[in-house]
């Protein structure tokens, strides 16, 4: 129940925040829009929750490059936990800004691999991908905040063999929605 309440709150926050941002941007003059950074490096630090039939904490840091007012891409590292196992997601992401401004709604796709926290043992980690819709709002020239909602999938393999049998693999398909809040630096 707690997760549903938190999720609903975050969802409302994201949508309202995004809607307000867009409304505000629509009122801006052309001069404001031209303030948008065309290219340059960015860094985003996120915390979030991956929810659904279970919930998992998630944290990541992304370093990337903004190629123009629409497109940017980055490389991320983080920490996540699924079913008592901790993972280090290593991924690349691509972003498309819906507006040509600093403060903008955006779409994001990521693909990567969930590395098991320990490189010994039966946990093999697995492929992961996800997609998000979010907003960034800059509160200073180089500092902004972001929030997003999206979907996340991971295919995790664990060769834990409780009975000593050979070739026994447990595969978990992680299907989660995700909410994130973060800080963006550029």
């Amino acid at each position, binding site marked *: 129940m707690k997760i549903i309440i938190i*999720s609903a709150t975050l*969802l409302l926050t994201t*949508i309202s925040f995004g809607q307000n941002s867009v409304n505000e941007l629509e009122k801006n003059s052309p001069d404001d829009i031209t303030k948008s950074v065309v290219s340059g490096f960015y860094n985003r630090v996120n915390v979030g929750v991956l*929810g*659904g*039939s279970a919930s998992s904490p998630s944290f990541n840091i992304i370093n990337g490059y903004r190629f123009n007012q629409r497109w940017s891409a980055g490389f991320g590292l983080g920490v996540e936990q699924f079913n008592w196992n901790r993972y280090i997601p290593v991924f690349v992401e691509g972003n498309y800004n819906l507006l040509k401004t600093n403060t903008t709604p955006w779409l994001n796709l990521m693909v990567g691999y969930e590395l098991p926290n320990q490189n010994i043992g039966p946990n093999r980690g697995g492929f992961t991908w996800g997609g998000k819709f979010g907003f960034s709002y800059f509160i200073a020239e180089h500092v902004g905040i972001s929030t997003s909602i999206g979907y996340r999938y991971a295919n995790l393999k664990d060769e834990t063999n409780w009975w000593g049998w050979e070739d*026994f693999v447990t595969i978990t398909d992680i*299907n989660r*929605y995700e909410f994130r809040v973060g800080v963006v630096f550029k």
Partner: protein
Amino acid sequence: MKKTVLMLGILALLGACKDKVRQEYIANVPVYTAYETFRSDGGFEGARPITQKGNIYFKDDFLFMVEPDEGIHFIDNSNPSSPVQTGFLKIWGATGMSIKGDYLYANSLIDLVIYDLSTITTPVFVDRMEDVFPTALPVSEKNYPYKTIDKNLGVVTSWTQEKVSEDVTNGNPSWVNCFQCDFETIGLGDGGFSEGSGSGQTSISGSITLFTILNDYLYVVEEGNFLHPINISNPTAPVAHDIVGLWGGVETIFPYQNYLFMGTPSGILIYGTDSPNNPNYIASLSHARGCDPVVVKDDYAYVTVRSGGPCGGDVNQLDVIDVSTISNPILKQSFDMKNPHGLGIDGDLLFICDGEAGLKVYDASNPLTVGDHLSHQFKNIQATDIIPFNTIAMVIGDDGIYQYDYSNPSEMILLSKISF
């Protein structure tokens, strides 16, 4: 309104996010044979090549070798230098046998079959006790899980290995490990029948056994935790009594005086047979974890503890246990070994099948120093079990049955080898 619909839609989608867990593995899948077909099979045939190692038994100049799940090879061993295979008794699912008087008893998976050996060249079927071993299963690839068994479909007579991928609902997959279920995963396995006395009335077997005869009772250990007492005082009409519960996963059984010594991965159990149809617990002694066949002579039990295999552990040794006070067995000495399997004792000679180290022969005139008195060692044989009897050592190796003459222990002579 639009916002509300959008939010409800999104929330509904989010609620559909559920993890899925599935397991992929290679499983032993049962192959069934109809009860009628299973019970109509069998009979004595001409000799055929031995293709798989099994337990060996000896009685009245005949050597018997069980080919697991197939049947029993009959070998005329009146001349150990030149043994002759005389026939094959086909018994579906056999893993062990025993002979008392003129009657041969063998398991046939869930049943016990009896043959009359009055004319040993033409055994005659006498009777079949049905469903005596209800949880028995054929020898299998034990390192794979097992699919659930449905007894209504027939007798499980073999296994196929299939790759299985299945969703796991509430953490309950369909494979079984059967700690508490009706069907254990390990059948009668490597067991055989054994009698330590060599009295001439009963056959003799090696030390790695799960069946034994003591007086008028055949005792069978099933699945490591059940002891079947079967009264064979009327050899053609045996009576099965209630199962006696054991514990610890019994792997071997050996009769001594009126007691049953049983080896488990963590020690030995001693049961009394004052009430032969209901053996009672007397004592136990723990040891390092490992497989542990046991033989007993003159109030000393000799136990080999072996690491690896299904028993686990990391100790390889020979334990000498004082059992003069049967209710209080005392470990007296331990001697390092390489990887000991079966063992046998005859007179003052202790024979140990010590894995890669081969067959070792010790002077056991003083049990407390037996491990320090190695008198002979055959390094060129990977021995599994042995029957030393009347100066002939019959040894199961990885590639055949070896026979040695030990009338002069310091100069044991290889007499013959039946290859398989």
